[in-house]
C-alpha cells in the first residue's frame, strides 16, 4: 500500500511536469509561468522516487468492515455536496447526520432522529445569525 502511494506520487509528478511543459518556461534570466511548477513537479517525482527506494513498510491492516465504513462516509459526504443546493442545508444535513448516528454510530432510532434534526436546525440558526447564509433549498424558510 505504501509503495503504491509512493508510485502514485511519482506518476503525479511526471504528469505535472508534462502538463507544465505546455506553459512558457522562460529562462533563469527571465523566468516565466511554467518555471516554478516544472521545478517543483520534478522535485515531487524525485523525492517520491527516493521514498519508494527506501522500501517502505505497509501499515497494519484494518479490522473487518473498516474500509466499508470509510467509503460509506466518504460517498455520503460527497453526495451531500451535490444535494446541498437543491435540497437545502436542513434536509441534506439531517439526512447525513442520521446516517452517521444510526448507520455508523449504531445509536437508537429515536436518539438519532432527535439529534440529527436538533443539530441541523441549531447549526442553521447559529450560522445564519452570524451572517453566514446557508442554502434554504425548497423549504419555505
Amino acid at each position, binding site marked *: *500500500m505504501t509503495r503504491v*502511494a*509512493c508510485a502514485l*506520487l511519482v506518476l*503525479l509528478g511526471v504528469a*505535472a511536469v508534462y*502538463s*507544465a511543459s505546455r*506553459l512558457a518556461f522562460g*529562462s*533563469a*534570466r*527571465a*523566468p*516565466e*509561468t*511554467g518555471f*516554478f*511548477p516544472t521545478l*517543483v*513537479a520534478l*522535485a*515531487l517525482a*524525485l*523525492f*517520491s522516487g*527516493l*521514498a519508494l*527506494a*527506501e522500501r*517502505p*513498510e*505497509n*501499515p497494519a491492516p*484494518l479490522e473487518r468492515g*473498516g*474500509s466499508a465504513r*470509510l467509503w460509506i*462516509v*466518504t460517498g455520503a*459526504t*460527497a453526495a*451531500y*455536496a451535490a444535494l*446541498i*443546493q437543491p435540497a437545502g442545508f436542513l434536509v441534506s444535513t439531517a439526512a*447525513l*447526520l442520521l446516517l*452517521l*448516528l444510526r448507520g*455508523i*454510530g449504531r*445509536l437508537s432510532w429515536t436518539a438519532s432522529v432527535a*439529534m*440529527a434534526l436538533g443539530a441541523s436546525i441549531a*447549526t442553521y440558526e447559529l*450560522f445564519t445569525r452570524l*451572517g*453566514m447564509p*446557508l442554502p434554504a433549498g425548497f423549504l419555505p424558510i
Partner: protein
Amino acid sequence: MGVWESLALGFSVSLTPANLAYCFAGVLLGTLVGVLPGLGSAATIALLLPVTYKMPPTSALIMLAGIWYGSMYGGSTTSILLRVPGESASVMTCIDGFEMARRGRAGAALGIAAFGSFIAGTLGLVGLMLLAPPLAEFALDFGPPEYFALTALGLTLVSFLGTSSAPKALAMAALGLLLGTVGLDPVRSEARFTFGVLSLQSGIDLIPMVMGLFGFSQVLHLVARPLVAEAAAQAPRGFLALLPNRQEWRAAAPAIGRGSVVGFLVGLLPGAGGTISSFVAYAIEKRLSRHPERFGRGAIEGVAAPESANNSATASGFIPLLTLGLPANVVMALMLGAFMLHGITPGPTLLAQKPDMFWGLITSMFVGNVMLLVLNLPLIGVFAKVTRMPAAYLVPVIVLACLVGAYGVNNNAFDILVMVGFGVFGYYAERTGFSLAPLVLAFVLGPLMETSLRQSLILSQGGFDIFVTRPISVVLLGIAVLMLVTPVLRWMGRRYVASRIAPKTGS
C-alpha cells in the same frame, strides 16, 4: 516606544469588554477542542475563519489565538485521564500523566499541567515581547533573495523535524508547492493547472483543504478503526485535589523552567511547534534526571516539562509570523489567512503600522492565560466528562464542523468536494507514513517562494550568485543545503565502509 508604553497600549486594546469576551470565547472553545480527541485546533480555527470576516480584525485574531493556546491546556486533560492525546502536542503527557492518574495522583498531574502551562505561556510571551520588535526592525532590510532563502530553509526544516522519512516529507513539501501553483500565476496572471474548472481559477482554498486534511481525515480514522479508550482514570474531586504537594512541586519546578526555554526555542523553528517541543523537553528531562527509571512510571517532571514546552512554543511560534510574515506551523498559516482576510499583511511593517493590533494581540494572550488557569482548575471535572464522548457522537460533530467550514468560505458546494478529497488523501497519507504538516506549510509558502525566486533571478539577470553574495541568504541556504546533503553523505559513507568490509569477510 518603550516596553511599558507598548504594554499599556496593548492592554488598552485587549482589556475592552468586547475583546475580553472574544478572548474568553476563544480560550473556552480551545479548551473544549483540546479535550476532544479527533478535533484539533487547526480544524477549529479553519472552521471559524469565515465567521471572523464580520468581526473587527484585532478581535478576530485575539479569539483565534485563544483557540490555539487554549487547546494546549485542554489536550493534557484527555492525555492524563484517558491516555489518549487530545492534541498531538500532548502525546508525551500520556506516558507519565496517565501513570500518575492510575496511582491516584490525577489531581496533581492535572494541576501541574495547568500551572506549568500558565508559567511557560507567560514566560514565552515575555520572550515574544522582547524579541519580536528588534527582529521586525532587522527584517525590514530583507529583499527577495532573503525571503527565498527563508522559505527554502523553512521547508527543509519542516521536512527533517519529527518525520520518520525525509524523502516522504520532502515529497509532501513538493506536492504542497505544486498545489500552491494551481490557479493564476502570481506575476503574470496566467492560468495554471486549472483544467478548465472555473472554481480552480482562484486557486485551491486553504480552508476546505485544512478542514479535509485535519478534520475529515480524523473522521475516517475514527470510523475505520474505532477509538478504543482504555479504562479512564478517576477524575479528581474538588479544587484542593488539584494542588501538587511540596515534594511534587520541588521536582516539577526546574522541569517547568527548562521546558519553557526548550519550548520557546523549538517553537521558533518552522514546522516544529508544540508537538516536537514536547518531545524534546521530555527527552531532556529524562536525560538530566538522576532517576531516569522513574520516567514512564508516573514522574511528575514527565508531565511538567512537555506541558510547559508546548505552551511556550505557542507563544514563540508567533514570532516568525509577526516579524517576517512567515508562518512557522499550520495554525500560524491559518492565522496568516485571518490577517489576509482583513486585508492586513503581517510582517516587518506590522509593528510600525498597526502597533495597537500587534500589542493588543500579545497582551490578550497574557489575559487569556490567566483566564485559562482560572477556568481550568475548577472546571476540570466538567472537561473530564467531555473526554468520554464516544465516537458515535464525535463523528457527526466533526463532520458537521467540516461541512459548514468548507461550504462557508465561498458559499460553494465545490469546496465540500475539495474538503472530502483532501480528507481521503490525508487519511491515506497518514496511514502510509506521509506527514501533512510539510504539505500545508509548503502550500502557504509556495506563492511567496515562487515570487521571491523569480524576482531574485530577474534582479541578478539569471545569476544564482545573488543567493550566495548576500550574507543572510547565504547562511540560511547553507543550513538548508547542509541538512539536505548530510543524509546522502552518511548513506554514501555507509556504502563505502560496507564495500571495504564485504570482500574481507568474504575471503
